């Protein structure tokens, strides 16, 4: 289980996280919603140790990752996979090298075994047979799917998704949502998804948390979130420019 306790982070004078408390349930998908620039990605980067908080704890299986040194943190990171917003595929490597990267780095698997795992993961994301293509030859949706195959290649327990559907057409958006649902279910993963796409969050989330002004202001099941009377949350869900969130 991942537990975030009283997390604070400021960049110069700007307070981004102001006492975040959140529990992520094992084997479920938790969606963190909030406005663009509201600190969602910053929170995600703290969960995987890419950023250090000013104060607070991030407990992964009861181990506070904030206190770990680089080597210990790397051991914890092997439990994680992450899908970055634009995929972050290594553009000097082809698809097979990208997907097999963690396997080559962290396992003693032979090349033909790695090739078999790569093919299996690419099949799981519906992209069988594109091993030799370079990232520059792929469309936006394909890049995200390859990135997902790379994220799950080493069979992580937890997968983080940073705005996985941003910039996709409605059909590809639906395909990626379905892929997240299937991947979570088939591999029994704990997923944390950052999103501000309202339709997607209700489809993929078992739990939804709203981050606003550096704090989690609502947390619950999709039904509870729908029924919430919190005006900030309701303004966000309805996309209204009138309400407590200052737009202009």
């Amino acid at each position, binding site marked *: 289980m991942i537990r975030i306790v009283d997390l604070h982070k400021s960049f110069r004078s700007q307070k981004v996280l102001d006492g975040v408390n959140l529990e992520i349930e094992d084997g479920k998908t938790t969606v963190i919603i909030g406005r663009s620039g509201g600190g969602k990605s910053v929170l995600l980067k703290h969960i995987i140790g890419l950023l250090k908080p000013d104060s607070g704890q991030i407990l992964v299986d009861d181990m506070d990752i904030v206190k770990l040194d680089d080597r210990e943190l790397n051991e914890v990171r092997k439990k994680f996979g*992450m899908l970055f917003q634009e995929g972050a595929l290594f553009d000097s490597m082809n698809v097979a090298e990208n997907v097999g990267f963690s396997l080559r*780095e962290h396992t003693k698997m032979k090349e033909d075994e790695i090739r078999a795992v790569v093919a299996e993961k690419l099949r799981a994301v519906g992209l069988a047979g594109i091993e030799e293509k370079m990232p520059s030859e792929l469309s936006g949706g394909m890049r995200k799917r390859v990135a997902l195959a790379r994220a799950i290649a080493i069979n992580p327990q937890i997968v983080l998704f940073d705005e996985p559907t941003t910039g996709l057409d409605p059909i590809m958006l639906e395909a990626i949502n379905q892929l997240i649902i299937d991947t979570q279910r088939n591999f029994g993963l704990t997923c944390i998804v950052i999103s501000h796409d309202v339709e997607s969050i209700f489809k993929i989330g078992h739990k939804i948390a709203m981050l606003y002004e550096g704090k989690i202001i609502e947390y619950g099941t999709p039904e509870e979130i729908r029924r919430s009377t919190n005006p900030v949350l309701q303004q966000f869900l309805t996309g209204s420019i009138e309400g407590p969130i200052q737009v202009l």
Partner: protein
Amino acid sequence: MKRIAESLDNLGRSVLSGVEQMGGMLILLISALSWMLRPPLKLRNIIKQMEFVGVKSTFVVVLTGVFTGMVLALQSYHGFRLFSAESLVGSTVALSMTRELGPVLTSLMVTARAGSAMAAELGTMRVTEQIDALYVMAANPIKYLVVPRIAASVLMVPILTAISDFLGILGGYFVGVILLDINEGIFLDNIYKYVELEDIYNGLIKAAFFGLLLSVIGCYKGFNTRGGAEGVGMATTEAVVIASVSILVADYFLTAIMF
């Protein structure tokens, strides 16, 4: 009064920023050295970078070396002819190439070609989150990206310098002996007489140091790129400018110590 205060403020900020950057480069270098000693060495990555920094820079270094030697022979011939010392053209070209022009011009060429590419490549990787992806996949980017570039530069710049030295002298020979009709025996004899082995290997040591400088600066600038395409452009330009100036400044101090 206010204007003076503002100027002092700006000056202070620039000095602080410079010191901060030098500190950052030193930390990057120490970190790279510590990762260099931890197995497994990413030999495949190092060889790939050696090909990029070394093999692919050969053509431009060959051209620079040959023409520098040629123009040096031409200029020194006209100068020495004034007091009938044309026989010194060969040794002048050889000493200038091995001690100074070989290492400095080669390093500047490699900076322009490979140092800029290091900053641009790592900068692009930074802004497209590929460096974060390496961290997430528990692969240290310093070991994976910086160590091979530094190792390749320290190894390949001296080799390129040796090529440049040799071809520069050959260019000088072509102009001096073949075009300007200096006696071949005297030309070569003066080279043997005045050029010590020390001149050659001190030049190569300088080249290795310049390779270290240009790669650390290129990697640091790329690694710390912020913003999008504009940030990558700025990082690349700054890497080339800072590395070129640093090479010329370091050259003075190294020369003062070595010769």
